[in-house]
């Protein structure tokens, strides 16, 4: 298995709990936010759905430049969220599975025009993105709980589902 195929296998595994959460989020909760400084349900859920696709530009592009614009998800329905997830997951998996091992040693940059926020390797950026995804998905699980939406099993049982 190549490095990319290993990442792809992990991404597929990590997408199951993400999907289980997103499919439970009713559109009427999209504008809700737990605190005035928090992301809305729609923004956080859209971000989680979108992140599965980040592996595409990490693996295939030398950088992400915010100055060039970025298409944000703007779901109106639960279906839209799932469609976004499926589309992003598919491109993420494709880029990861096709990349040769050497690619992960290449440099990758996050910038806005002349301002460079981060320079790292593609491999390190992939690893970090897995963490970043788990971070926001963890936040989303609290949003679900606060809206009395049953929290699915993630790494183990939740207070609502699964048993050990």
């Amino acid at each position, binding site marked *: 298995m190549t490095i990319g195929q290993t990442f792809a296998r992990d991404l597929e595994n*990590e997408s199951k709990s993400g999907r289980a959460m997103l499919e439970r989020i009713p559109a009427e909760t999209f504008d809700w936010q*737990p605190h005035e400084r928090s992301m809305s349900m729609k923004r956080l859920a859209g971000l989680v759905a979108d992140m599965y696709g980040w592996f595409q530009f990490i693996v295939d592009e030398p950088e992400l430049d915010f100055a060039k614009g970025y298409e944000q998800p703007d779901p109106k329905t639960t279906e839209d969220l799932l469609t976004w997830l499926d589309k992003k997951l598919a491109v993420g998996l494709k880029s990861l599975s096709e990349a040769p091992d050497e690619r992960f040693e290449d440099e990758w940059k996050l910038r806005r025009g002349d301002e460079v926020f981060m320079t790292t390797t593609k491999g390190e950026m992939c690893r*970090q993105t897995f963490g970043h995804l*788990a971070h926001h998905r963890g936040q989303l699980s609290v*949003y679900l709980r*606060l809206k009395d939406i049953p929290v699915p099993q993630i*790494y183990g049982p939740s207070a609502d589902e699964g048993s*050990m």
Partner: protein
Amino acid sequence: MTTSTATSTGRIAAAFLGELENEAKVTRTVLERVPADKFDYKPHEKSMTFGRLASHIAEMFGWTKETLKSDVLDFSAMDYKPFEPTSTEELLAFFDDHIAKAKAILAETSDETFMTDWTMRNGEQVYFTMPKVAVMRSFVMNHIIHHRGQLSVYLRLNDIPVPAMYGPSADEGAM
């Protein structure tokens, strides 16, 4: 049950050590901000309390030992006592101790050990068997990050500034 004897730091362990260093730094910043007078707070009746969630995150770094020094975790053979801190200092001391132990264990783990299978079970019932490297990645590291993400919402709900983690929060850091 223990696995093969210790050898020098492998390449996989070296990568995890770097990652552990980073994650520990961020996690400490988060734990430092959990006030003892809020340990009993919970955002919902079915949620973990602030104190329990924070100490769970701290103790999970200690799972490095269960993952790398054993081949099986059997709940039916465990005598688990959740750690209950009475102060933020106590929480941090417990955390620092687990980090130091996790680093020492990683430093003596060979690549070969990471490729051996690890099983989680409850007596007869087997939940999963995966190579140790995958257990460290998913069940330990990503799992910690998951709960730390939850804790960041608890901070926000209590008007405690959320530190920058992977990028700026609404309170700190800038891009």
